[in-house]
Every structure is written in C-alpha cells, then in structure tokens.
C-alpha cells in the first residue's frame, strides 16, 4: 500500500500536480519498512556499535512520547543520522523519516533510493522555491504520525546554534513536540571532508520534549536552548 501524495491539510487538498521534489513514498510502504528494519537491525546498528560505540543519556525522555515528534540535533558528520536512528531505538525508528539534503543525498537516483530504503530519508531542498514543498511533505508526514529527524543548522559543522526555522514550521503546524538531541564525538569519527570513518566513541544526549506552541521563533529559541542543555549534560557526563 502506498501513501497518498498529499496529506490532510487545506493546502494539500489542492488539485494534484506532479511534484517538483520526488517524495520517495515507496520507501514508506510496509515492504520497504520491513527491508529497512532488517537492514538497520541486521547491519547498520551492529556496524555502528562496532565503529562508534555510543552511549545515550536521557533516553527516558523518550518514554513520554506517545505520538510523532520532530527530533532536532547538531550536525557534524554524515554519521549523525545513522547514529541518531540507532540511539532512538526501534519503537521510534520504525516510523521516522530523516530530512536529507536533496542536493547531496539525492544527486543520483541510485544514491537517493539507497538512502531512502536504508535510512528512511526524504529529500529536503535546502534553498529555492522547492524548499516549501519539502517542508510541506514533512508536515504532512508528521500529521500522519511519522516522526521527523532534522538537522536544523542546515549543514555540517555549525554547532548547536543558528538553527533555521524549518523544523519549527513542521512542529507548530502539525502540533507535534520537538525533542532536542546533542551528538558528541562524531566530529572526530567522520568530520566534514572525510569519506571514511575513524573509529571512536560517541555520546548522545536527549533532552525532554518541548511542546510546539504557536510561535515559530519562540520554538527555535527553545530548541536551541534544549540542544545546549543536552550538550551540558553530555559534557558533565564525559568529565565523570
């Protein structure tokens, strides 16, 4: 069963037209999800544990989540998304999409299909008019019960501030909470510009969910503060 191309919002009820940004909706069908689960449980997570054994702090913050959420994290490495998937666990991972840069991960059809199948990514256009379509797709998915993992800094190596508003649009419009995450150690494992990982430990701090509210700017500020707080917890833990 494939998902409808459009969601339940008013904008989505407009007449159908060919989307400028492919949605890769086949990657969210049950067979594809089954394959993804097998790949993640059988290969991805064990491999990640071998290359970058990770410790998750604050995982109990996820227990209060009953529905979808927007997960936001600092971005340092191409390993960020797989590590987040592994850290969030099977319950959340089963119904989670990752916003991935369309210009990078979807530069070729094969690359895009592989990323969508293995990681559950959806193409996210970072600039230009198509970025609204990308946001709309993510809002629709959040409205249909899918969690979204997004790196709101937009590019790697920018730290835990300077977040763009895209994630706030998704959370406020779909009325889903935002969960801040801080990733530490991946800047050494696979920094920007390297193509092979160098093994090393990783720590992931997960903060408490932030209610979406109705103010985009306020949510951005709260999310930045949430990621900074998660960073403080991670640093304190590291010094233990």
């Amino acid at each position, binding site marked *: 069963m494939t998902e409808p191309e459009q969601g339940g919002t008013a904008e989505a009820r407009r007449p159908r037209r060919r989307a400028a940004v492919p949605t890769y909706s086949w990657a969210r069908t049950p067979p594809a999800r089954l394959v993804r689960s097998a790949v993640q449980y059988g290969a991805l997570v064990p491999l990640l544990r*071998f290359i970058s054994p990770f410790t998750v702090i604050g995982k109990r913050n996820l227990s209060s989540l009953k529905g979808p959420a927007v997960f936001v994290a600092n971005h340092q490495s191409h390993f960020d998304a797989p590590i987040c998937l592994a850290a969030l666990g099977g319950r959340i991972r089963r119904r989670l999409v990752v916003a991935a840069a369309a210009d990078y991960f979807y530069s070729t059809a094969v690359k895009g299909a592989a990323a969508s199948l293995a990681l559950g990514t959806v193409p996210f256009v970072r600039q230009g008019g198509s970025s609204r379509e990308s946001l709309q797709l993510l809002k629709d998915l959040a409205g249909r019960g899918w969690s979204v993992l997004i790196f709101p800094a937009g590019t790697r190596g920018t730290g835990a501030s300077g977040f763009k508003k895209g994630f706030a649009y998704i959370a406020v419009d779909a009325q889903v909470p935002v969960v801040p995450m801080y990733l530490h150690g991946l800047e050494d494992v696979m920094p920007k510009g390297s193509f092979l990982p160098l*093994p*090393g430990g990783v720590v992931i701090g997960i903060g408490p969910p932030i209610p979406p509210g109705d103010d985009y700017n306020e949510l951005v500020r709260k999310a930045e503060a949430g990621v900074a707080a998660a960073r403080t917890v991670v640093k304190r*833990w590291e010094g*233990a």
Partner: protein
Amino acid sequence: MPRNPFANDLFLPVFLRVMLLIVVGLIAVLVAQRRSVRVWRRSTLFLRARTWLLIGPLFVIAVFTGGFVAFLLATFVVAQGSSEFVRVAGIERRYAYLLILWGEVGLLVAALARDFFVFLPFGFFILLTLVPILTGRVQDAHRQVADTLVGYVFVGLPMAYIVFVNSSEPWGLNFLVIVTVSVAVSDIAAYAVGSAVRSPKLVPRVDPSKSWGGVLGNFIGAAVGVGLLWVAVPSEWSIAAVVALGVMVAVGSVWGDLTEGFIRTAFRSEARSTLLLGYGGVLDRVDSLLMAVPLCYYALILADKLVG
C-alpha cells in the same frame, strides 16, 4: 572455527572466578565509599566496576569461544585503540587508516600465517613510506611515519602477539586468560592501594597519578591474579616460570601505565575517549595488557629454559 566454551573444562572455573572478582570488587566499592546513592553512582570506582561487569564476562566468553568471535573482539580493540592513539598523537587520517589496516592484517598473519609474523613491523614501515613517496607530500612526513610506527608497536603489534601466542602454543589459551585477568587485578589493586596509601610519586613528570604505593598494588594484584587463576596454570610450567610470569604482569602493568602517560605528556594531548565508563577509552584499559603480554611470554620461555 568457534568452539563451545562449555566443552572446555577450564571455562566454568575461570568464568566463575572472574565474576566473583567483579562482584567482590563492586561490594568493596560500596563499602569503601559509603556515600549517598546519587554520589556513589557517579564515582569513578563504581563506573569502573560497572564497566567490568560488562566486559569481564564478554571477554571470557569470547576467548573461550575462539574463532571469529575472539577475532571480532581483537579487531575491535585494534580499531578503537589505534584510533585513540591517532587522536592523542595527532596523526593524519591517511596514516591512521594504514595503522588500523595493518593492525588488522597483523591479527590475520598471527592466526593464519605465523611464518610471516616477524615481517610485520618492517612490512608496516615499507607501507608507511609509500605514503609520502606516492603522494609527494614530504613535509612533516618523517614525524607522521615515526608516530604511526610508535602507534603500531604500542597497539597493533602487541595485539598480534596475543593472537600469535594463543594460536601457536598449546597453552596459549591458559596464558592469555591468566595474563589478562592478572593484569586487570593488578591495575585495580594499583588504583586501590595507590589511593589508600600516601606515598611519593613514581615519575611525576610522566604520570602525575602513579605512586610507589600504586606500584606495590600492582605487585600485590599480580600475585592475587595469578593465585586466583592457579587452576589454569598448565602442568608443564615450572614454578620459576609462574613466578616470572607474575613479576612480569606487575612490571608490564606499571610500564604500560607509564608508557601511556609519557605518550600523552609528549604529545601534550588531552584527547579522551568516552567508550568505557570510568576508564575513558579502550587504550586506557588495555595499555598494561599490551605491554605485559610480550614481556610475560618471553619471561615464561626464558625462565623455563634457565630452569629446565
């Protein structure tokens, strides 16, 4: 091929002794600290005991299972330990990948092609020199080559030794179990005695935390470790060989700590891994073992030759 660990008569006695050691250690920490649970759960000693609770049984099962299970564990230690050294020493990534690769090759050679074992260090030197030759990047290359070689001799080569001894000697498994557990007990005893007894520092400029009391702890711990695993001592080992082994466990433990200390001091590095709670990285945990295994092996052979 992996083996059924329970088929080995030694497995259960060793497993139970290791578990007993960890549980006694955990209780000792509880009694010694007498703090609120909140503070206690964050103490280094508790974190170390908790880490042991995980890696102790894992190690014993992997070693007795052998085959690719043990190989996987060795591969992990080589990859993570080498990476940590790379970060401490500031080695470029191209050299770092070769360090890890050759470390893994060394494990295979030690297990499957022992005739080529002695070629490993020189073979690595040849491989490393290819980097500046092929890339033309000679600036700082001598330092990179030298530092990477040190990393190999410190991490990859001793790990290959472990596999080599285990696969080439009929008592290889016994040797590995005795040395590993004794080194661990020696390290723990060094920490406990060093913390409890006020004594002068051993070499403060190299390792400000290592004291003469810690050294005494190393020797006591080594003796306790060997005694605890007396059940694993093969009948063909002479008493002199066992004594030499115990002494070398302590010497190797001290030497390993000091070597890691001097490497960190020399590179002025504060790079710290978060892999093992309470210890930091794999290197912190295995530095003593890496130094002790070759020392113990040759001490054992030498003692047997001199006595027998």
